[in-house]
């Protein structure tokens, strides 16, 4: 059999599946459409304590995994305990009991004074006796830089002249602070946090990113490297359907062409990624996957077909959480119910937590199971 495993979706789960297939010696093709949750995420990796496999993969994706809970700062002045983070995020746990500088360049979306007060007043800071103070850093060259999106600001700061200037400034300011906390502006294409840390002679890092910020963009960049290193074929485009062809499967693309697959991993994400969608705003508002599948969606163990009202589920629940509980219930235990070499992982799975570590570990599981199908 020469057909590859086809993975639909290139977020954390899809990359993990492709990585696992490649490591098992199989051939993998990864098909992905537009940006999903992984390109929008915060840079924080929640979930259970990760396995060794997850840690190994995470590292090659530029994430830092700590076996003990670490701590990171959010944009909104809170501090969170986590197992993993994008390497550009400042690890506060290492700074416990010290004095941290909250850098304030004068941007509209960032109030260093208020944030420093807010971080200092959190339970974590009080219990570890960690202090934060605002460090004014006049970095802005124009009024436009005050308001531009964090992503664009990060692209600007990593240009060679600006990065060099920032490194020079950091060598001089913030006396008396043990580490410097920036907003989510420390580069997309370059590892600016690491460069600045060595220039400043102390740790320099970011808070978590807002939706569509730099952490997700860095994931997008690092993904390419991991896939290339493992010789996974990356294809842009959307799948329209997965069909049964005797003992194999066929993935039909938007342009009508088809890929024969010995197994298919569905890593299509959730509603954020467009992996699932509400069909219309009218009666009931049923949900469906972004491609035709020989299996049905489930929500809390119930099958969801075209006649099932998602609006009704939401009304009964009294919140939008069903949007995150809905998904595919075919995991690495090989779908006995469907008898098809078809697996789901990441946000596409029904009833699983929507976290990075869950996406990575379920992706590895699905990839391994798919590679084992002969």
């Amino acid at each position: 059999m020469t057909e590859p495993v086809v993975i639909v979706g290139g977020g954390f789960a899809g990359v993990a599946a492709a990585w696992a297939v490649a490591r098992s010696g199989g051939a993998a093709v990864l098909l992905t459409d537009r940006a999903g949750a992984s390109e929008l995420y915060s840079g924080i990796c929640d979930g259970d304590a990760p396995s060794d496999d997850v840690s190994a993969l995470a590292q090659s994706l530029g994430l830092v995994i700590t076996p003990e809970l670490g701590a990171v700062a959010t944009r909104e002045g809170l501090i969170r305990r986590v197992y993993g983070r994008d390497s550009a995020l400042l690890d506060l746990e290492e700074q416990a009991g010290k004095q941290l500088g909250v850098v304030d360049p004068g941007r509209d979306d960032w109030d260093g004074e208020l944030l420093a007060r807010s971080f200092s007043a959190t339970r974590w800071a009080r219990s570890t006796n960690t202090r934060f103070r605002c460090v004014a850093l006049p970095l802005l060259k124009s009024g436009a830089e005050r308001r531009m999106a964090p992503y664009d600001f990060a692209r600007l700061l990593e240009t060679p002249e600006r990065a060099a200037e920032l490194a020079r400034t950091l060598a001089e300011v913030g006396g008396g602070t043990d580490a410097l906390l920036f907003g989510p502006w420390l580069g997309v294409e370059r590892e600016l946090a690491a460069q600045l840390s060595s220039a400043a002679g102390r740790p320099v890092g970011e808070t978590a990113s807002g939706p569509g910020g730099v952490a997700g963009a860095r994931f997008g960049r690092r993904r390419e490297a991991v896939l290339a290193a493992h010789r996974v074929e990356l294809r842009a485009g959307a799948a329209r359907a997965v069909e049964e062809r005797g003992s194999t499967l066929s993935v039909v693309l938007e342009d009508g062409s088809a890929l024969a697959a010995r197994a298919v991993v569905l890593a299509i994400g959730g509603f954020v990624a467009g992996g699932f969608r509400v069909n219309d705003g009218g009666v009931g508002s049923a949900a469906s996957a972004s491609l035709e599948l020989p299996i049905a969606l489930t929500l809390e163990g119930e099958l969801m077909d075209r006649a099932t009202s998602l609006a009704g589920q939401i009304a009964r629940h009294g919140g939008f959480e069903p949007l995150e509980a809905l998904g595919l219930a075919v995991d690495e235990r090989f779908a006995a119910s469907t008898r098809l070499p078809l697996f789901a992982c990441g946000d596409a799975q029904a009833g699983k937590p929507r976290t990075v570590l869950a996406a990575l570990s379920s992706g590895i599981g699905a990839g391994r199971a798919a590679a084992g199908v002969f």
Partner: protein
Amino acid sequence: MSAPADGPFDRDVIVIGGGVNGTGVARDCALRGLTVALFERNDIAFGASGNSSGMIHGGPRYLTNDPDVTYSSCLDSGHIQHVAPHLLFRIPFLMPVFGSGLGARILLNGYDAFFSLYDKYQPLKRGKPHVRLAGDDLRRLEPGLVGGVFGGVTFDEWGIDGARLCIANAVDAVERGARVHVHTSVTEILRRDDGSAYGVAYRNRHTGEIGRVTARAVVNATGAWAPITAGLGGLERTTTPIRPGKGIHVFLDRRLTNYAIMASSIDGRQVFLMPWQNMSVLGTTDDDYYGDLDDVIASRDEVEYLFQAVERVFPAVRSARAIGTWGGVRPTLYGWGGNEDELSREHRIVDHAEHRADGLYSMIGGKLASYRLFSEEMTDLLAKRLGNDRPCSTHSSPLPGGAEAVDPMQLVLDGGMEAVTATRLEYRHGARSLRVLERMQRNPREAAVVCPCEPVTEAEIRYAVEHELAATVDDVSRRTRLGLGSCGGMRCALRCGRIVADARGLSPEQGTKLSLAFLNGARRRRLSLLSPDQARQEALSLASLRAELGPDGQRTGDD
């Protein structure tokens, strides 16, 4: 704790309810030198007043039976414009006539004749005369109208932000010595042995603090809550005969028209699609309501009812994304058609002396548009009772911010604000936008835009907390529209909570709780809006909130 039933009294007047009528009376009393305490169990404008269609109309529907009402409505609309010019905006209406042949022509002639009559009153409120249009002209004005328009008329009304109107009245009352207690429920109306009222007992819903205040007169201005409030004094609910009518609105993420367009619903009622800043609004419904008045939520059926009605006239309404709803309960007079006097007014003052409760009054019915007149009538009665002979001046004394005009351009030049920020700020605060500007000049940090959808600056949030009785993120949103744009507060609610907490000296965790209360409430008001785009937005906002607070953070606010 016993309060003296025979004086000295703490205040001349106690007002229960911080809607447009309660704040209107409190202000009128304060202007005439009476001492007032006002109690509002939620926030100012929490009820119908902050959830209406916001039309200060001139009462065209009375034109044929009772032109005097049209006259006084138009006159009063003119008064409101005079005292709060910044809060009013023109709403040009378009009333299309469909079909063809004689039927359509007769209908159009009828509208034409009717609005010619209305034109006579328009100058009282600085309105423009109506225009009769042929079908082609109509479609040139609004290309999105369906085919088959025979013709139509345009007419002119005024809109207002009802919440801002209430805030302006409350703030003015406070500045003139009134005590306004928000988030404080009246729990009992105190009565003497002879039945007369002499004060109220209250409970602060945030702090739990309880107390009593005595006064020489008590006014029940609690809108649809009026029968419940009457019960707090041991009166039967039939003493305040209202029929609660729920109405909802839906707002859409883009501006679809330049005119407000009228359409007929499936049951023949008139509903509208109205442009509002860079968004559009669909309204409204009217159904009997006996649910929780503190939690009025639009249902999917009501939303669909509005869409279906408007879609027949303006199909593109479905192309916009519904991003929010609001709902309120009208305190409609029960069987008001029965009595000629009530018919002409739609509002009534009940003197509960007729129920052995001398000194207690209920204001029932009414409209936003007639609040000033209704408040004047109520205050006249109080003044007479209390021996005060100062005349009413609410038609001539400007509300806060209404005294002089400020050019938003000045805010742009002096404050470095962006034009939209300046325009919205000036709309909400009139001349007082200069006070917000001053804050920014003193502390440039406060010029930061916190809610980019509206937009709202940090200075305005702090101003609302310090000078406009706001205590929560919800309260700030009611005053500024923060968090009601297409991202549903995803980008600003947490930051606003942090600022409110900081301004009030609360911890960051308490600030997060205020943000979550707002986000959860706003999300509940969107549960009925499950379009494809909105579903993605809701999933995104759930995820981004979790990113800030952690998987369990919605419960605890911190790890």
